[in-house]
């Protein structure tokens, strides 16, 4: 799977709140730093396995099941799509 943000969803930096935000048609999401690290990699090219590897280089104790759970929740909220991977 290679997650990709859906059209109309974009990641932005809010200098008023001093944090990263996700803007989408009906709302604003304020992800924590781990979720941000996942979201910026949802480009349709990076696989879930690669995202997990990238995160392990930054954070200790990254659980791939947690990452997949987060991605599935964001997909259910129509923020990203979990495209099937070619391999």
């Amino acid at each position, binding site marked *: 799977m290679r997650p990709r943000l859906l*059209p*109309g969803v974009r990641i932005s930096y*809010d*200098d*008023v709140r001093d944090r990263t935000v996700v*803007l989408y*048609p009906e709302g*604003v999401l304020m992800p924590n730093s781990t979720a941000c690290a996942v979201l910026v990699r949802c480009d349709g090219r990076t696989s879930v396995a690669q995202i997990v590897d990238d995160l392990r280089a930054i954070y200790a104790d990254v659980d791939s099941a947690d990452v997949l759970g987060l991605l599935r929740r964001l997909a259910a909220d129509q923020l990203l*799509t979990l495209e099937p991977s070619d391999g």
Partner: protein
Amino acid sequence: MADTGRPFGLLAELTHRCPLHCTYCSNPVELLTRDRELTTEQWQDTFDQARKLGVLQVHLSGGEPLLRRDLPELVRHASRLGCYVNLVTSGLGLTERRAAELAGCGLDHVQLSLQDASETEADRMAGTTAHRTKLAAARIVRDLGLPLTVNVVLHRGNLDRVQEICLLAKDLGAARLELANTQYYGWALRNRAGLLPSAGQLNRALETVRQMRRQLGESMQIVYVTADYYEPYPKPCMHGWAARQLTIAPDGTVLPCPAAQVIKDLSWPRVTDRSLADIWYHSEGFNAFRGTAWMSPTCTACPRKEIDFGGCRCQAYLLTGRAEATDPVCGKSPDHHLIEALVAAPGDAEPVMRGYR
């Protein structure tokens, strides 16, 4: 109030002018004329203030915002501030050239209204020939690659065509369909007798929505806004009074929600009189129903008070004359008999088209 948070969204009602005459419109019955509208510079200054206050989403609405010739400038201004810019439109006037210009100015999303799946019925509700132009506008939006939400207000006259509406929105390439039962404010309240559906209609429509969600899967998200008169609990209106959003009327009046001006006990300052931050944090109107201290005994004792926030203050005021009353929609409200009577016998009055008196 020390614990007041920052707003996320601004509904900018750029104008009350509109080519449509929908009887379900939630705009006030006293529509503002063009000479009362804020200027380009005043709106731009308002967007600057809104961004500093924390606003990240600007919904350009009306009326029909495309009737403002300065719309591209306003889109560009809000976009450059870093805001997500959403156009809420009837689609009338959204030519290829205009749409491309707006996209070039940074427009992020288009919310297009349709009245019905039946052209005859859609045009009857709009009070003009509009349906075909709207379908063309939807295709223009999609061809530009802009994400499209189709919005349809539901009422007695179109609830039986929810399936056709879903299939039409899908055919138009909408990423999202919002099916929103009529909220009874402004013109819709005036025309309520002709708009209220039957409970049977609502049940059938909801079953159809479930079926269409299964059928269409993730290809189109269907959001269904319930008919609150028929619900056991009130809607969590605006996620709490003056908590996340603000509305600015065409003349610059700053409001916690589009309907708040009906509450005549409170004064509503304009952005030309006071700063937006001062109004958000310190005005009487914005602080009137924040938190839970204002609540009626019914709400104060209720375990759901932090879930639905006592429902809608405007609805409470419109139906009981007391803005602090529990929303009469709530089954626990001492005024709930008002809703029961309306639902039991909705009546069948001749509608007054929006804009006609």
